[in-house]
């Protein structure tokens, strides 16, 4: 099933008196259960593309469909609904709510979706189990390590079982051991829940785990590579 369809996407930002083109004529499609990444150096347009797919920004030209909805035509409320029901976000700096416990951080998306307390409790504990943090449910983010924080962020993104998870440089603040742990967790969730993962990264550790690699350069798709499953295992 098609999750994302990008057609002739161009994105420009005002810059001084003129404009800066961040993305040019992008055409891509992503299906259910993909584990794909936008790869490129800083300024290549990968975060901009991720923001548009995440309905946080809109195209200047072309069209982006996410779960059949045209991002450019969504109102602010419709975009929020799309994110609330179907998308999870993982950030480079975790962005957990510091005064809330691990349980409460993971529970937050479910509160927005108005699940009842019993359902929430079960779903949060399931999500914490996926990331191996059931014993930390009462801890607060300042009491956790960087790796644990990112695992909480993954649990928060996955708890509502979204169709799509967008991860922007998720391992940038982690050491190699924690990065691998995080990526293995995400890959496992991708395999078991058939959730589509789309990364923006230039980290080799992440790139090695990707099943589909889209290389961006100066706002254009420069190259695309599909990796066979056996190659990933070997890697």
């Amino acid at each position, binding site marked *: 099933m098609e999750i994302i369809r990008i057609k002739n996407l161009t994105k420009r930002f005002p810059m001084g008196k003129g404009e800066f083109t961040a993305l040019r004529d992008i055409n891509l499609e992503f299906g259910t259960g993909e584990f794909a990444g936008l790869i490129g150096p800083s300024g290549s347009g990968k975060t901009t593309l991720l*923001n548009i797919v*995440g*309905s*946080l*920004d809109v195209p200047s030209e072309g069209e982006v469909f996410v779960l059949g909805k045209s991002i450019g035509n969504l109102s*602010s*409320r419709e*975009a*929020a*609904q*799309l*994110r*609330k*029901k179907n*998308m999870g*976000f993982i*950030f*480079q*700096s975790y*962005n957990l*709510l*510091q*005064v*809330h416990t691990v349980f*409460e951080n993971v*529970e*937050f*998306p479910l*509160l*927005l979706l108005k699940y009842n307390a019993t359902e929430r409790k079960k779903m949060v504990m399931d999500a914490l189990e996926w990331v191996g943090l059931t014993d930390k449910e009462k801890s607060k983010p300042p009491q956790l390590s960087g790796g644990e924080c990112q695992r909480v962020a993954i649990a*928060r993104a996955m708890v509502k079982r979204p169709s799509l998870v967008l991860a922007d440089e998720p391992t940038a603040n982690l050491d190699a051991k924690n990065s691998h742990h995080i990526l293995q967790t995400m890959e496992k969730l991708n395999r078991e829940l058939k959730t589509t993962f789309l990364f923006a990264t230039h980290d080799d550790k992440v790139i090695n785990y990707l099943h589909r690699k889209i290389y961006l350069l100066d706002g254009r798709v420069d190259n695309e590579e599909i990796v066979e499953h056996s190659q990933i295992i070997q890697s």
Partner: protein
Amino acid sequence: MIRFLIKGLFRDKSRSRLPIIVVAIGVMLTVFLHAYITGFMGDTIEMNARFSNGHVKVMTRAYAENMDQNPNDLALLDVQNLKIELQQLFPDMRWAERIQFGGLVDVPDEEGNTRAQGPAIGLGLDLLSPDTKEIQRLNLEGSLVRGNLPARPGEVLASDIFSQRLGIKPGDPITLIGSTMEGGLSIHNFIVAGTLSFGVEVMDRGTVIADIEDVRLALDMYDAAGEVIGFFPDGFYDDHLAKKVSGVFNSIYDAEAGEFMPVMKSLSEQGTMGTYVQLAKVWSWYITLVFVIAMSLVLWNAGLLGGLRRYGEIGVRLAMGEEKGHVYRSMIWESVFVGLVGSLLGTTLGLTIAAYIQVHGIDISGMMEGASLMMPSEIRTRITPMDYYIGFFPGLLSTVTGTMLAGIGIYKRQTARLFKELEA
């Protein structure tokens, strides 16, 4: 969801405790300053009212024209009947006869020769009637330094500083040399019953207070009084009401009937008191307004910064799919809570401090030495109904307005831009 937000609010001290403290301090200062200004300005007016002007004063028209000189030759006659009429016309008001006079106080030695002399301001008022309010009105009992209040005719009170200068003490005889109502020489002996400290520099310098019947006897003023002063029952001057009362009285006592007909003047119509009343009103409003605006700006900014500081958290909440309107409304409700709690706390604190100073006062006598104005030597706040709500303008309105302005950023900025700020 509401529980989640409340938990966040209470746990995040920089979101709840700190803003509440800032708002409470601002509100406390606003409430206290308003009570202080009202008290200080009002004290001076009330002091002048109690000692000299009354809230309204009845005199003859001729006396009124030369009021500064206290011309007792132009005093009111048939005062007892006039008081009865005043009581009937304005039954809620309290009326008191007064005679103000000047004279020389002579202190004799054992042989009757002059030991010391000094000029004095004399005040004749009702000290001996069983139902007199004058002792309470002028706080004579509280001002007593040595001796007692007069208990029988022929006894007087003298200001303590004055009595020390003349070397007299309670029980000593003094002679008052002055002029009668008809302009003749008056010499009358008194016994000093006690000495007073008025707390008003002008009066402490040389005042003698005697029972009005004694003064009438000394100055040949049978059933006469220089003035009859009236006070509102709540004890506070109300310029609008005073002018209304004097208007009613003066419309009954026609001006054309002669210069010895009584006329009533409100406190603000007497000498320079009008300017002071106006000045007090204007300054009180002006200072309060400036302070309220200043505090509003401070708390507005606090609300604004509080909102801006939370862009990161807002970015996360938007990413999770919370709607902008919901985020904005929750911010407003939080600021309403912070503003309300801070305002209640600040108002309570401000009123508590103001109430303490209203009862105990702050002694500023050291600053009043040599003053020629009748001003209190103790500063007292005065709590008015306005003090119960004035703090809510900066406390609640400004905090909420600041947050609303900061929150507008949520609408104006693109979500992706908020994200950039969040990542930063």
